[in-house]
């Protein structure tokens, strides 16, 4: 699909090449993430693919054709491109932004509109947004549009340069999940640049670690975590690796507490408080007769609504975030930590509540990972 052969780029006026003799081949449908410290040549490598930067030496083949043998404008129209600054045109509506490449390709207005509608239905945004202007959207919504814009002409290859880098952690998390799903649906080859190891591990089929213009290691997230090629890679993965090499295989089920404190939705608020008091907790998971997770309720909600409402189901919050018991901790741990909530409910099929993971449980696991071996050694020495 995409092949780099001895690709070198030396910018005018600089002696050291920004990218040096890079060899890499990327398969169709693969999600490849370039990662490395700032200035190591990730962006340069990516921009050589759509010729925003011209290689000084070597060849880049897209589906067998050297990019330098193609008209640069045509080439770019056939490759999706998403940048960190999002780059939505402020004077165009969201719809016009999405159909920008379509308009360059001289699609009919009708076709442009149809395609925009089709695309916006892929993400969690209402169709009315097509008539809004970018500044009316939040950062996360804007970058969703940025991604859709790159998908508009259905290019087989999409380049993304730190697309989620400017978003706050929670928005970024949501978008990463959503995007990973989307990628599976649309079946694209994706070249993605980041300097965030979490992001790389979460999204990549193949990680390419770069340093000073050269590739240091290429491999799947697991391979890289388990067998870092050298000290640089180890340092680069750093503290994260300690946490991640174990969550790699550990499932949520293994660390969850299987006896969460719950209350049935048709109980009264007074009964709910009683349960909290008896168990010395300040919030409860709400379930129905057969144990389906319905939401949660905490002491503040009860306090605020005690006069107006009498039953749990009237006062509870149904926006409950949960993880599946067979999820890998690797995929969920950072989400859990970053959300900052004290616990996450664990469900199985049909939203049945089976447990709860608390921050304390995570702390235990991290402790075991970091000092577990040491403790074992000390014990053995005794």
């Amino acid at each position, binding site marked *: 699909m995409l092949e780099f052969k001895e690709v070198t780029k030396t910018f005018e006026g600089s002696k050291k090449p920004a990218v040096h003799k890079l060899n890499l081949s990327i398969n169709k449908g693969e999600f490849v993430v370039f990662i490395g410290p700032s200035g190591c040549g990730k962006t340069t490598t990516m921009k050589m693919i759509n010729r*925003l930067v011209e290689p000084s030496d070597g060849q880049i083949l897209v589906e067998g054709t050297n990019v330098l043998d193609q008209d640069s*404008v045509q*080439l770019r129209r056939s490759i999706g*491109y998403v*940048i960190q600054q999002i780059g939505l*045109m*402020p004077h165009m509506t969201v719809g016009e932004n999405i159909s920008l490449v379509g308009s*360059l390709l001289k699609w009919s207005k009708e076709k442009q509109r149809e395609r925009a509608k089709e695309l916006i239905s892929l993400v969690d945004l209402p169709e009315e947004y097509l008539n809004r202007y970018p500044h009316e959207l939040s950062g996360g919504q804007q970058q969703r549009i940025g991604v859709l814009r790159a998908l508009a002409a259905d290019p087989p290859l999409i*380049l993304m340069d730190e697309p989620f880098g400017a978003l706050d952690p929670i928005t970024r998390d949501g978008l990463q999940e959503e995007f990973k799903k989307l990628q599976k649906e649309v079946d694209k080859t994706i070249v993605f640049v980041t300097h965030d190891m979490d992001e790389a591990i979460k999204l990549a089929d193949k990680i390419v670690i770069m340093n000073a213009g050269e590739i240091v290691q290429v491999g799947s997230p697991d391979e890289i975590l388990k067998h870092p090629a050298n000290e640089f890679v180890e340092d680069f993965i750093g503290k994260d690796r300690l946490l991640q090499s174990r969550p790699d295989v550990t499932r949520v089920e293994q660390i969850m507490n299987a006896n969460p404190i719950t209350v049935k939705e048709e109980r009264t608020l007074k009964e709910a408080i009683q349960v909290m008091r008896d168990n010395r907790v300040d919030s409860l998971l709400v379930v129905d007769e057969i144990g389906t997770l319905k939401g949660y309720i905490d002491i503040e909600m009860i306090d605020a609504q005690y006069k107006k409402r009498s039953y749990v189901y009237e006062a509870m919050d149904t926006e409950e975030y949960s993880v599946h018991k067979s999820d890998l901790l690797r995929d969920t741990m950072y989400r859990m930590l970053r959300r900052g909530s004290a616990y996450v409910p664990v469900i199985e099929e049909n939203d049945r509540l089976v447990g709860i993971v608390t921050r304390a449980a995570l702390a235990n696991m991290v402790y075991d990972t970091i000092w577990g071996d040491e403790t074992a050694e000390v014990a053995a020495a005794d």
Partner: protein
Amino acid sequence: MEAIITTLSAYGWDLLEKTGEHMFISLAAILLGVSVAIPAGILLTRIPKVADRIISFVGVLQTVPSLAILAFLMPFLGVGVLPAIIALFIYSVLPILRNTYTGVMEVDSSLKEAGRGMGMSNWETVRKIELPLALPVIMSGIRFATVYLIGWATLAAFIGGGGLGDLIFDGLNLYQPS
């Protein structure tokens, strides 16, 4: 009050006609200025290294007194409306050129890059991104030039270009301090 009414009834038509001429000269010069300075301003953004020097040079032209320019143009273009328009046009170039250049340079570079990365040709980048986004700045240059030119157009009278200058200079010549 009475004096104004007598003046208007005597010179009313004249005034109207001269105003018409005045407007025509100014607007023709502005249109000419717009059609030269905007493309030139955009071209300058493609050669930012020398753009500043070129703009300074045009700025120097601007400081030549208008009468001198009129006098300079006379041997080539003679007298009448055309040389007047050309002289004024020269003055309209700088503000429009400068504002076009700054306006386009100020367009967020990530937008230009997004445009290029999506496969816009040079011309498409100009038409779909740079011009629309620089428009407010360009317009303020045009507005500035227009106000400026309507004032300068008075001098057109000196080379037979007509306009309100005719009336003003007639008035000044005929004025007898009592």
